[in-house]
């Protein structure tokens, strides 16, 4: 478990989101689906973010400015510094015959890194508006839909599904693809198993997402 103070390289707007690019320092980018805890300037607790892209010498995170912490992260300027801890948790299993990436909204965040690792498999992405759908440009070979069309309507049979998105989407994906690997999300204070805050009930059991997830098998 490694924590470093790293320099912001750039913040790029992608629709309503910001792609925050940070110098990698001595940190390992980890496996797709793993996450990092990013210091949120001026806030008490860091924020968990899955790695979006791992350009040479950098770590890039796609962030949705929905609260004070994520807004502060999106507002960081090149040259600013922040503490970064990671990589944390368990990523996606990559030995698959017919991978299909499924993403919803800011849930597309880990898919660019995942797409690269799987040599750009097909992807289906759902968004609530055309503006949000601009994030689809980060994922190669993606078919995009906007509400009221749902991603689950675009999932062909017989695919090895790897999905990330809001909980209702993940539940719906699980219904059509029972063996899917799902990346879940929960508020976390620590990201390394200390706080027990990120427990989510899955199949009647409470699991600590940061240690046992965030990627869990649906079955």
């Amino acid at each position, binding site marked *: 478990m490694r924590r470093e103070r790293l320099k912001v390289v750039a913040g790029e707007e992608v629709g309503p989101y910001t792609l925050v690019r940070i110098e990698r320092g001595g940190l390992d980018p980890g496996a797709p689906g793993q996450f990092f805890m990013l210091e949120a300037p001026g806030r*008490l*607790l860091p924020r968990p973010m899955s790695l979006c892209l791992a350009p040479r010498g950098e770590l890039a995170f796609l962030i949705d400015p929905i609260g004070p912490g994520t807004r502060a992260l999106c507002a960081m300027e090149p040259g600013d510094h922040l503490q970064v801890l990671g990589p944390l948790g368990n990523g996606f299993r990559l030995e698959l015959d017919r991978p299909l990436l499924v993403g919803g909204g800011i849930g597309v965040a880990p898919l660019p890194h995942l797409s690269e690792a799987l040599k750009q498999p097909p992807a289906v992405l759902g968004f609530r508006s055309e503006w949000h759908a601009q994030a689809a440009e980060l994922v190669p070979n993606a078919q995009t839909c906007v509400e009221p069309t749902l991603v689950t309507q675009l999932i062909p049979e017989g695919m090895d599904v790897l999905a990330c998105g809001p909980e209702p989407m993940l539940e719906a994906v699980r219904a059509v693809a029972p063996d899917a690997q799902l990346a879940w999300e929960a508020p976390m204070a620590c990201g390394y*198993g*200390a*706080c*027990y*805050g990120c427990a989510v*009930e899955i199949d009647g059991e*409470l699991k600590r997402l940061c240690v046992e997830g965030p990627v869990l098998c649906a079955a």
Partner: protein
Amino acid sequence: MLLNASGCLDALTAPDVARALDAFVTKTVTPLPRDGNTPVRIAETDVGMLNSIGLANPGIDRFVTRNLPRLGELGVPIWVSVGGFETDDYAEICSRLDDHAEVSAIELNVSCPNVEAPAESAAQIVAAARLATRKPLWAKLSPAVPDIAEVARAAQAAGADGLSLVNTIRGLKLDARTLRPVLGPGQGGLSGPALRPIALAAVATCYRATQLPIVGMGGVQNGLDALELIAAGARHVALGTILFADPDAPARVRAELHTAGAERGWRAYEDAYAVAHEEALSVGTTLDDRSSL
């Protein structure tokens, strides 16, 4: 000594963080396994964080057979935090721990804000635990009582060897949009910087009331915060919420504590113990040889 606050570190998941402390305090153990409370369980506020974990733990049976042997291998003294819903629960767990050499001390959590409080008083629980174990007993008290000195004196009379001050205080956060509670169970325990002046007051009050050794905790972010607790009357300091944001906090706070002590003219930071209760220094005389202030 530098410890962690109970529930703020899992030594089996993060052994290196635990080894950076002088003693590791476990998450509270109850007689039966508990899943804990319904998510959402944590929320940040502008002045601290709220948690409502609800004493998630494997129960005393699995704790003793599965966790304790592994904790014993860490090479750090182990304090076990004990919780329950009636006096007998505490007594039972204390007697189960009594024969385990891995256990250096027992902290009685008589003040969790996130589960139904035991009906008995802290003193009754301490008295029952005292009969069940020879281990050092630390009573962890809530600052949310009318007179913490009275609770502390009663715990001392019942046989407590020390006090852990303070537990979290109950708080509520509403979702700004829906105006409904953010936390699944509604309310939770407030920790972090907001708790620090409350902890300082509780430590100072209980020091004067009992002179018992105290583990001070509540909102410690850095070495100076820790030094202030020592000055208020804490023998030891525990780190809580800061561990979530900074797993390197034990080494950092320890280094800052030495520096903060030295800057104020103390050869060892322990020498600042309870200094807040002495008469204030008169400016111009003693401050001369503490010019680095």
